[in-house]
């Protein structure tokens, strides 16, 4: 990656009129937004508005129309939505993390470091993934993403299926990692209080349309009412 891409004003991600169709159905239409380095962009919208589909297009897993440009040489870490894994799989966290090593070569030290960053122990990761709690499993996925030394983290509802204290700790972890590692974060969330408090920009998807801007311009009662079809209240933390 050349230096001007790192320091310049060039966006890390430039999405222009992105449209995604599944057969005859149009899931997303003309979605346009830009993300600069170090920003924290929250993606919100009702169920079925295409948030996960957008992420999958951004990582190149599904085809799309329009343009979508990542800055050259960008590495991203992707943490998908709650995975439906069979609980009886004889797969441990370590088995999973080993895919990060070339030919299975990964030292315990490298693994311990990645796990330490997310608050997991190597011992916990020697258990089968089915025995991890929701919060532990999300931490494992984040550790996996971090091991690739990413510039951008894409997190799809990382706190879904995690108990309330666990949600708070995960949110703190994400903010801490973002600050420490100067990450750009794209986060799908249903928690508008968290979005209001931490996001630098909000992308709101609903029924094919998209609104993009700063939290104060997007998280207005009128727009939220229009998007969710019902008045939406959320708690604004005082700074």
């Amino acid at each position, binding site marked *: 990656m050349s230096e001007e891409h790192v320091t310049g004003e060039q966006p890390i991600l430039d999405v222009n009129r992105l449209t995604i169709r599944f057969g005859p159905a149009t899931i997303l239409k003309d979605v346009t937004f830009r993300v600069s380095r170090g920003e924290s962009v929250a993606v919100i919208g009702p169920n079925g508005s295409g948030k996960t589909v957008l992420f999958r297009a951004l990582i190149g897993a599904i085809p799309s129309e329009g343009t979508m440009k990542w800055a050259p040489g960008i590495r991203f870490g992707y943490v*998908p939505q709650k995975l439906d894994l069979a609980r009886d799989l004889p*797969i441990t966290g370590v088995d999973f993390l080993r*895919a990060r090593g070339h030919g299975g070569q990964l030292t315990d030290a490298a693994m311990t470091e990645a796990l330490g960053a997310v608050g997991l122990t190597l011992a916990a990761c020697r258990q089968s993934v089915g025995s991890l709690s929701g919060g532990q499993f999300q931490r494992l996925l984040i550790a996996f993403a971090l091991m690739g030394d990413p510039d951008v983290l894409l997190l799809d509802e990382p706190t879904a299926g995690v108990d309330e204290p666990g949600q708070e700790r995960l949110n703190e972890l994400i903010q801490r990692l973002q600050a420490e590692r100067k990450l750009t974060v794209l986060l799908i969330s249903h928690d508008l209080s968290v979005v209001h408090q931490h996001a630098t920009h909000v992308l709101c998807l609903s029924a094919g349309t998209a609104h993009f801007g700063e939290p104060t311009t997007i998280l207005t009662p009128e727009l939220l009412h229009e998007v969710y079809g019902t008045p939406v209240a959320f708690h604004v933390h005082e700074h």
Partner: protein
Amino acid sequence: MSIETLALSATMALAAGLIGCFAVMRRMALAGDALSHVALPGIGVALALHIHPLFGAVAMLLFAGLLVWAIEDRSHLALETIIGVVFSGALAIGSLMTTGEDLIEALFGGTRTISQTEIIFGVLTAFAVTAFVLMRRHALIVTLVSPDIARTIGIDVRRLNLIYLEMFALTVALGLRYLGVLLMGSLIIIPAATAKRVSRNLTQMLTVASALAILVTVIGSLTAAHFHRPTGPFIVTLAAAVFFLSALWRNE
């Protein structure tokens, strides 16, 4: 039964145990089992054309692997239907094309002398399957956990799936000589399913599955030779018995 035949059947079992682990974890136990049935019409055509039945079987199995790969992305219902109709249909057509001793041997495995062609194919394929599973096991695990995560770390998921399915198809072809088209799928699935119940990590599962597959194959083959009967039924009965024992042991 010669030592060479027994050794070759053990390498076949090693490959079957290893490839089966991922079939069981991918929840394609049924598909994997039925896949072996498509070999029969291939054997029938080869016998009619007076070429080695192995080539007919391999061709049909590779095609079936490609078929499963092409429809796997779509809904699971479609895959189950295709397998139910196409693979069982293939078994029926194959049974019409093959008769007598040839049919019994194709269905359940035989005891005839092993040919040079089979030895070369057996060694090469068993080596390829074993190497593939051991070298790509972590990529296969990540793909199993999340194909999207796999993509972000540069794994070509579609290609990996295709190679996996074709390796599976070749493993079926490896064992046809010993277990026949009806039972080879079971040698791939049952030891792996047993290993899944008793293992705590990937290494344990791969070790237990391959050891079990080799054990039941060797004991089953020797027993079948002693009674002058087809080998497949002995091997699979033994494998199923071990599975049920493991189920009891785990539940207590």
